[in-house]
């Protein structure tokens, strides 16, 4: 029985900030220029999802690893830490 990513994130403790700490700078680039759209794969929290004609950013589940900031081939993601005390809080770590 494999565990889906949604179930994994459900185990974690988040204090979600309404304002996203992640933003795709130019959505056009994602749909026209980006070959392979790697953020759909490497993000360990499945934050980036392919919708009909754009990529949605589901920042609530972000594990704050930093990967999308540097591994997006177009450096198309504006990235900051969530406000102090927000985001994930590890229980075990």
């Amino acid at each position: 029985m494999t565990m889906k990513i949604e179930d994994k994130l459900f185990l974690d403790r988040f204090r979600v900030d309404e304002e996203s700490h992640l933003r795709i700078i130019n959505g056009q680039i994602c749909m026209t220029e980006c070959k392979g759209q790697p953020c759909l794969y490497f993000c360990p929290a499945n934050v980036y999802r392919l919708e009909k004609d754009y990529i949605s950013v589901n920042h609530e589940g972000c594990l704050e690893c930093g990967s999308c900031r540097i591994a997006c081939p177009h450096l198309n993601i504006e990235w900051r830490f969530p406000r102090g005390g927000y985001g994930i809080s590890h229980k075990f770590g």
Partner: protein
Amino acid sequence: MKEAFDVAIVGAGPAGTSAACILAGAGVKTILFERGEYPGAKNMSGGVLYGQELARVLPDFAERKLPIERNIIESRLWYLSKEGGYNLGYRDAIFATERKHNVFTVGRARFDRWYAEQARQKGVLVVPGTVVVDLLRDGSGRVTGVVTGRAEGEVTAQVTLLADGVNSPLAALTGFRREVKPEHVALAVKEVIDLPAEVVDQRFGVSGGNGVTTEVLGDIVGGMNGVGVLYTNSASISLCIGANLADFATFKLKPYELIEEFKQHPMVAPLIAGGKSLEYVAHWLPEGGYDTIPRLYGDGYLIAGDSAMLFNAPHREGSNLAMASGRMAAETVIEALERGDCSRKSLADYGERMAQSFVLQDMKKYRGFGPFLHHHKEIFNELPRAATFAGREMITVNGVSKREKQKLIFRNARKETSLLKYLKLLWSGWRAVK
């Protein structure tokens, strides 16, 4: 909050908190910023810590109710193919007696919180829930303190210690370290699997709070340059799997699917059977090695720990390098403050101390290790396949003579990769670690 401190530290991980303890111990007015709700809230590792380095900061750590999970008496190394693998282990009773707590496991959420509490008791002002978003500088570029995300959140300090870990947007912004490249970090995910302590004892053949660590190599990361670990905690097991971030981007593998496959591997599944997942987290490890270490100090600042890309990949040591560098940074700062000079020249002693310690010496020794793994992907697919074939043939009793079996194994290994490639692998492997 425009308040003046001797030292401002960014990040309450092993590096920052070690420095804070030493500074406060010498009566230096120190403030320690942490972006998490509490120290440890954003941190994770396999969980192995080293007592010797911790004792250099807190000699009496054992009496301070350190939240240890298990004392490690055995280290295993697995080399796996999809269906099986080799197991090499070393257990020694000395690690339960004379050398107890030389190596032990912790949960970082609890450990880092405990550690920062020790610093607080020594007089450090610990400020959690606060992100440092920029550095203050004077006209000459000298760092004079930090800017936090809070209203009027500037704090001035004679010296600032950057101990903010490997994922550092602050570094990218201020340029004290160049933004890391995907090939210079590994992305790892971790699950903690809940199991009763007695079950962990039974499955690993241990008792009395002792435990086992297992490092896992081979065909478990879809051919990427990566590793897994399986460590015992008091009443749970830590499972991590990770690979080079550049590989993740090109191989198009999903970290959460990789860890699911790892959990189902025939060597892993029986050890975690019946256990429930308690948590799922992700973090980077610095993998670029010696050549990605930034300048460690400058006018008014120093860099320690993961933030300085200090990580010994072949030995999976990071927290001790963080503690040691934090300690040496603090020792340097204490002398610089006494001299009343926190310029780059005055802090240069930190570079000297580091160069003479195991921290930079080990980093230098393994300088070629990262590139070695990067260029020899056969370690992660062809080789474990050939090794499994060999293991299977030697163990299967089926009337074929042993000499014939050796021939078969050799032929199969040649089919997987050429002899020349094996030799090259041996040669460059030796050069990478010698």
